[in-house]
């Protein structure tokens, strides 16, 4: 396949997901409602608990990360979910489309949507609670967002693999999995407060390192030596594993007939 065709296939998925998102009122709901509720409730709680400005920033960074990763991850999962819901999976996989096109195309839309969520929440955080997302600087912010997007991609592709492996029954993973990952990654607390056995798992999650690096700019001592490099390395490893798992799941679905069953 030529580069032109590769890009066209990615663009086709990007356009498809964007059109679907723009025409679904629930997609707007998930884009705006929960993120705003999250920032307002956490911000107000930090005011009630009389947290210092740095502590409030700590939890607000986590809240914003939760929304950004959640919105972006769901969009990646839509790469498969939209076709499962519309029972068009077999048409999708009859065409010369690879999982790279599906996941990258969806990821592009996910990044745009979650970036919009980020801008909205940053503005809300600044207006309501005086929270400054740009305090760490543009580069730190860009790295933090990249970490969120990469984590979302990995979780989203893993969800796609699970749905392709187990069918509609695995749909709940699309909503539940990211929260599990985020709880372990320490969105509201440093992972040093976790029990040792759980902290081991937390250290295996890329977002843990990106959160740590970003929060260091708000005056919190970094728990890791090279958090960004570690986060990127882990992201690359999991991206490869998730991609392989999705590919294997599709091969299995073609063998077991699940691909057809999900289209009936």
């Amino acid at each position: 396949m030529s580069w032109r065709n590769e890009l066209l296939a990615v663009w086709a998925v990007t356009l498809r997901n964007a059109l679907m998102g723009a025409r679904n009122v629930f997609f707007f709901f998930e884009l705006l409602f929960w993120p705003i509720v999250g920032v307002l409730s956490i911000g107000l709680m930090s005011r009630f608990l009389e947290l210092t400005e740095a502590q409030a920033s700590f939890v607000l960074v986590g809240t914003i990360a939760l929304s950004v990763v959640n919105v972006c991850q769901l969009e990646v999962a839509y790469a498969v979910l939209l076709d499962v819901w519309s029972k068009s999976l077999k048409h999708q996989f009859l065409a010369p489309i690879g999982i790279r096109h599906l996941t990258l195309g969806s990821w592009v839309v996910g990044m745009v949507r979650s970036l919009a969520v980020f801008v909205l929440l940053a503005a809300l955080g600044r207006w309501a609670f005086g929270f400054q997302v740009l305090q760490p600087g543009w580069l730190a912010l860009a790295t933090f967002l990249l970490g969120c997007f990469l984590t979302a991609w990995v979780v989203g592709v893993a969800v796609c693999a699970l749905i392709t492996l187990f069918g509609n029954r695995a749909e709940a993973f699309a909503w539940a999995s990211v929260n599990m990952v985020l709880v372990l990654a320490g969105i509201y607390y440093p992972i040093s407060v976790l029990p040792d056995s759980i902290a081991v798992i937390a250290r295996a999650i890329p977002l843990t390192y990106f959160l740590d690096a970003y929060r260091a700019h708000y005056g919190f001592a970094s728990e890791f030596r090279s958090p960004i490099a570690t986060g990127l390395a882990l992201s690359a490893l999991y991206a490869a594993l998730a991609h392989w798992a999705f590919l294997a799941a599709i091969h299995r679905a073609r063998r077991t007939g699940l691909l057809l069953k999900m289209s009936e």
Partner: protein
Amino acid sequence: MVSFLRMLAIDARDVEKTFRSGWPRRRETPALRGVSLRVERGSIFGLLGPNGAGKTTLLSILATLLTPDRGTVMVLGLDVVREAGALRRRLNMASGRPSFLWSLRVAEIVAFYGRLYGLSGAALHRRVDGLIELCELGPYRRIPYSDLSTGLKQRVALAKSLVNDPELLFLDEPTLGLDPDVSVRVRAHIARLRREQGITIVLTTHYMREADELCDEIAFIKSGRILARGTPGELKRQIRLGEVVALRLDPARVPWLADVPGVLRCVEVDGWVECTVDEAEKRLPELLRALYADGVVIRNVQVREPELEEVFVELAK
């Protein structure tokens, strides 16, 4: 031999497929049991059989949507398992139960698949417009898929299936649930595709008239095995159903007709007495003589081959 194989669109040998489900007790459902099939390029091939016969399973294997457990399947000279990626660019499929993303409009659906096949810019617009016109979808191009009727959805599926100018087109029950007038138009489209573009078409159908009208060759499949194959005419002869002598008589009922030598059975249909005979050329004069001798007035006589439906019923027993 090599040139003969090049002429084949499909060469499937000893294909087996068993579906396994359930846990912890595995349940095995054999879907195909050693199916072999050859389809010539440029022909329309029909796969007929009762529900659960294995038609869709076979079609899905040929279309790379399902991998066979055993056997070799070459489609357009490519292996459906090892060369599936290259093959997908050259074939396409439309289903009688189509389904696409509910919010996308007709033109957007066709364009989406067009992009996946490498079309862009003016070429994409021309193809989308051409297919929308071909499938008579012009007035509906901006209508969301979920708002379309069953017939229109099927036309969208047909438009999508032609977006890559396929060399081989699979049609899974293409006229299922359509109004008769729409079915006639869809069948005309299918015939035109083969005639004007030389596309090889493999279709599954429950409608015998459709198979009889469209297909150059037909395979009857039941319980995962091909029971008979040939042209519609060959199949009718293979099954030895005889020929039908239809008589309009006065009086309308002649009870002794079924006892005439060579008459296999007699039934009354809409005022006609239809006698299935072993050999019409030999039995027709004998029947007419016997009726004349009995004083029965013969108002009309027709001789015809049995309907494909009768062949199907016979094979499905």
